[in-house]
């Protein structure tokens, strides 16, 4: 009896069809592509200052390790504003509630840029609860809508909110983590 139960347990812990279907290489490439798009967007925000010579930026190749993907190479964006240096460090794609994270690290703090559902305004929007009333037929599962992903800034306030990433919000973030 116990042996059979144990066998069922062992079988349940094996890689499922769903696991096998995940194309990890594709996931990594999509994430790196979204990362490149983030950097392009930020480069656009900084363009005027870069042309004026007051801000410069460059990229450094770093190794990122995720248990699900192993170790791979990604680019870190380093921004220099006079004496201040800010790095945008890619963290990974196998994350809770989002498809990617980049940490913005400055001399005075750190902030997170998350690749989240474009429609999510706060972390609370990620909560999904289904209630079944006893005696009634369970609701049919909703058809999954394709998610449109967008880079947003995660606030440190409670509750956590997602702020759209635009020139104004990004500059505010830079000043905050650079102690301006």
């Amino acid at each position, binding site marked *: 009896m116990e042996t059979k139960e144990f066998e069922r347990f062992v079988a349940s812990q094996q890689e499922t069809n769903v696991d096998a279907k995940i194309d990890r290489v594709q996931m990594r490439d999509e994430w790196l592509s979204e990362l490149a798009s983030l950097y392009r967007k930020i480069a656009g925000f900084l363009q005027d200052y870069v042309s004026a010579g007051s801000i410069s930026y460059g990229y450094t190749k770093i190794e990122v390790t995720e248990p699900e993907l192993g170790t791979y190479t990604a680019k870190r964006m380093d921004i220099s504003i006079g004496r201040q240096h800010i790095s945008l460090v890619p*963290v990974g794609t*196998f*994350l*809770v509630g989002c498809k990617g994270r980049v940490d913005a690290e400055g001399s005075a703090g750190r902030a997170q840029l998350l690749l989240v559902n474009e429609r999510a305004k706060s*972390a609370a929007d*990620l*909560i999904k609860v289904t209630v079944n009333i006893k005696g009634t037929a369970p609701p049919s599962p909703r058809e999954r809508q394709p998610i449109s992903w967008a880079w947003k800034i995660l606030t440190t306030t409670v509750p*956590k909110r997602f702020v759209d990433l635009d020139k104004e919000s990004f500059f505010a973030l830079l000043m905050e983590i650079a102690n301006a």
Partner: protein
Amino acid sequence: MPKQFTITPTLELDELASYHQDLVGSLRLYFNPSTPTFAARFVGKRLDEVRQELASRLEESEFRSAFFVLTRLEASFKIDFDFRCKKRLKDDLSKNFREVERKRDKVRMDADILEGWKRHRPEWSREISELRGAFKFRHWLAHGRYWTPKLGRKKYDFAYVHLMAESIISGFGLAG
């Protein structure tokens, strides 16, 4: 030592154990990916970061729960001390405690109470020694952990401290 004790309701050892069990169970549920609020709470974190955070919460909970068991144990020893003095019991340990009470304004847990037990109940010397180690841990927690403690054991987790407290309270026959 206060002349009169006001015994306010306090959790007994089995209640402390139930509380700890509920705490650990709640934390494990809160950190479980199937919990509806999981994504909102941990958005942006890697699963290994979430696991580390859970491990850290559990370790802290072990410390806190063990701390309260030790405070309960300390109270039991002090109540026993007071009882023996008030009732003027005739055994050697009680006589020793009355002598201490007469000489000292403030009774010391280690040097007076535990030392008295060790001297007059030598059969419990191993347990007293373990208890002294655990009280060092309790002292370290109570005073803000600002130094690196030299403890008898690497880890004073709840299970160990609770078992020790149970065996001491039932075995020593603490009065009061």
